[in-house]
């Protein structure tokens, strides 16, 4: 075994458990290319998400130069992202110059719903993909060409796991948690909630009919993401929407 990088001559699957990384980032001039036995080990030390992260940085710069606020809306499927967006577009679409990027594995159903409100929308179908990435969102942004000072909402693929890993270049991350899903989602999906700037508790009009512990949910959100704001709302009755709209207005000016 190479003492520097720990690589082995025996190609096999190996899970190294515990302890220090046997292959710490090591700085040396020769590019760490050497031969031993039949093979050569080449150090790369390259972030797996480097390409996505670089495109996300470019998206962020593009948005910043146009003073456009982009928010990344994430939740499990059926938490009410599109319904909230329809209502938001109707109530606030003109004021914010709102436009929408819709992400779904298939169909343009959500884009049709948003388009019916008079809002500009681009649909991304990810096929087998379970999340949006910075490349497709960058293309969608350029297609959408949002006016300066406006707000773009990116509705990610309904999924509480995978979208958490992929920076899109957004200015804020919003996670929806509907009361019908149960209050335990933040502790079950901490990666997603950890990165949230805002948590919207949706479908609060259904609280009388479901077993959703509002206080416990709020405490868990606070535990996992101490800085995240929390707004309970109902897109059906309109309760709480003013707070959500104020958040968007303030964030756009920030």
């Amino acid at each position, binding site marked *: 075994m190479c003492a520097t990088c720990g690589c082995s001559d025996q190609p096999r699957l190996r899970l190294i458990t515990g302890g220090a990384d046997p292959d710490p980032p090591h700085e040396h001039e020769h590019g760490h290319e050497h031969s031993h036995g039949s093979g050569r080990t080449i150090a790369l030390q390259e972030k797996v998400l480097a*390409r996505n992260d670089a495109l996300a940085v470019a998206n962020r710069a593009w948005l910043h130069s146009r003073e456009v606020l982009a928010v990344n809306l994430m939740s499990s499927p059926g938490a009410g992202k599109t319904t909230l967006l329809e209502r938001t577009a109707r109530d606030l679409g003109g004021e914010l110059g709102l436009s929408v990027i819709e992400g779904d594995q298939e169909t343009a159903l959500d884009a049709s719903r948003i388009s019916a409100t008079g809002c500009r929308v681009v649909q991304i179908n990810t096929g087998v993909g379970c999340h949006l990435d910075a490349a497709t969102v960058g293309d969608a942004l350029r297609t959408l060409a949002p006016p300066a000072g406006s707000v773009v909402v990116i509705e990610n693929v309904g999924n509480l796991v995978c979208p958490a890993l992929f920076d899109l270049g957004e200015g804020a991350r919003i996670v929806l948690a509907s009361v019908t899903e149960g209050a335990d989602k933040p502790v079950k999906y901490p990666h997603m909630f950890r990165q949230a700037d805002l948590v919207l508790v949706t479908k609060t009009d259904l609280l009388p009919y479901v077993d959703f512990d509002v206080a416990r949910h709020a405490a868990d959100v606070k535990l996992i993401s101490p800085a995240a704001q929390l707004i309970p709302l109902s897109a059906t009755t309109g309760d709480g929407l003013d707070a959500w709209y104020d958040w968007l207005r303030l964030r756009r000016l920030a």
Partner: protein
Amino acid sequence: MHELSIVEGVIETVCERLPGARVTSVRLTVGALSGVVTDALLFCFDLATEGTSLAGATLEITPVPGECRCRSCGARFTPDSPILLCPCGSADAEVLAGQELVIASVKVA
């Protein structure tokens, strides 16, 4: 399962960096707080590498434990789950290590 796109990203990067090389193994450094499931990476790898210059290569994974610093009490601690709970009870913590997701090295024939 985002691990499939992670693995596809690994294959793409390796093929770009080492065009034409016959790769026999790939070593990834995967932090405990990276949001990636090691078993899922291993599960995808053989399927995703089929038909590429990484076909037949093995995937080796070096795990990195999480390390945090509590913003409330200042203590360093290793979280035992993705919830960054300091023994003092605060979960307001800065991540010092464990978010790595890096292609450390590859071995070529």
